[in-house]
């Protein structure tokens, strides 16, 4: 399994042709307490960088973009009732969806952990 990141602070844990998707610790620290998440549609295909889900915190409402193109195979529907899971463990239990990757070449457009850490440094 390898983990990749986007500039917009989504992560994707890739295993075979499935990517588990969520948002990073940094994203959560910027959002503040999450009060609502509008999950993606099950079975629907999303393009890379297309709006996958919407998230609302006490500060703002934001879009979550799909790190890779693919079809949604599984949703973390527990988030519907307890969106705070995203605050508590954004990179584990707070995952949002699993998608079946259509084009694995797109992974090249994502950052690895080290590159993402460097990206965060530029935002300070």
């Amino acid at each position, binding site marked *: 399994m390898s983990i990749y990141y986007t500039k917009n602070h989504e992560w994707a844990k890739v295993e075979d042709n499935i990517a588990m998707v969520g948002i990073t610790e940094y994203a959560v620290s910027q959002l503040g307490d999450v009060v609502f998440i509008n999950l993606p549609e099950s079975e629907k295909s999303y393009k890379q960088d297309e709006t996958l889900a919407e998230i609302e915190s*006490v500060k703002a409402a934001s879009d979550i973009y799909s790190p890779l193109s693919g079809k949604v195979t599984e949703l973390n529907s527990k988030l519907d009732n307890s969106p705070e899971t995203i605050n508590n463990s954004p990179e584990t239990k707070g995952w949002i969806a699993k998608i079946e990757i259509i084009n694995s070449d797109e992974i090249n457009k994502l950052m690895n952990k080290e590159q993402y850490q460097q990206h965060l440094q530029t935002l300070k």
Partner: protein
Amino acid sequence: MKLIFEKSTFDREGFKLPKLDVPECKLPTDNLLESKKVNLPQVGELELVRHYTNLSKLNYCLDSHFYPLGSCTMKYNPKILETIAGFESFSNLTPNLSLSKKGFKYIQGSLALLFQLQNLLTEITGTSKVTLQPLAGAQGELTGMLMIKAYHQKKNNQKKYVIVPDTSHGTNPASVAMAGYESISIPTGPEGQMDLKIFKEKLTDEVAAVIMTCPNTLGIFNTQIKQICDLAHQKDVLTYYDGANLNAILGKIKPAELGFDIVHLNLHKTFSAPHGGGGPGAGPVGVVDKLVPFLPEPYIVKDKNDQFSLYQQSPDSIGKVAPFFGNFQVLLKALTYILILGKEGLEKVSEIAVLNANYIMESLKDYYQLPFRRRCMHECVISAQKQKEKGISALNIAKYLIQEGIHPPTIYFPLIVKEAMMIEPTETESKKTLDQFIQIMKKAAKLAKESPQTLKQAPANFIFSRFDEVKAARNQNLKYKNNNNE
């Protein structure tokens, strides 16, 4: 404070029905009757009056407090506007009179006023014609977008996208989507204005329009605006001016002269008709010559006998966007405001609005971080990023302002500025009020260093304490239930 339901007692009454003096008759069908007991509160008149008077005292409003809510232009609305809009000759008028020829005779005066407002707004925006119909700024935007769509369809232009800077109001991309286009967001450059290089890259033949708020939501005037409009026009891309911030350039610049094709105005902001729970809005839209055929109809015209009538003959018009003439009384307030101030007065509005915002920004620059170090227009954005190091957020400072009797500025918007506080003092506030606000903001900065706990616990000694915003959003409890769960 107790709810009116909790004050209910069965031995007091506030109202008695008169004795039945007509023969009693049955309802046509029984299902009109409520079978369950209706749980209505019952109190005496005095208790009722006290309840609502006390509630109204909790209301935080412009008539009682300073309200520097950025981007919202919460300025004081002179009371004479209410007086005039409340004249019986206006308030007792029915728009149905415009449905018949005979009725039309009786509304000539009102039509004359609307016609005058149409012309004044045309003059102010530099456009060729204005529709008064849209009932709010966002509806004005949608009206503009629908005209853009109609224009491109008529010309058989294949257009898919609308360019919107990342500082734009949330309604901009929403209007774009409602008109069936996709929005392209352009980031802000280091100067606080749309990145021109990226704009040029994204400006393809498939772009239908570019929407600009100028000054933008950072309170910054885009000095490249003319160039942006020229570049857009080379590709038959229409230019849309979001008038939310017209307050800053009123009487100084006409948006159409900068190169904008469509201009919407928020009468309930710039032209002092109240807003923010204070009543309905109005969002007239002006267009340049090439878009006049697409304007919503009808609009008011004057014939050679000085009679006013409605014009609706363009086959390309997008049609009606509101019943009758829009929000008539809101329009009346704006007209009154414009006539009272006159051209010089309107210029003064923007001069003082800009002066006040700059005064605040300059006074606070050593205490808070300024994301962009340049002259602001009618509002300024400062950041609590310095205070964040001590664990104090913009939210904490906002709560402290409540404790000090000031409505907090807009926080966490625009989204591109971390810990943003967006302050719009408006031209209606005195230097004394501004100085008080500045002192309180300086004190907040001092507390952030010396006693952060005070800010974290604010508001203290206030009518309410700090709300749990997460709980308020997640576990809403909006319906009263008595002990019997009814």
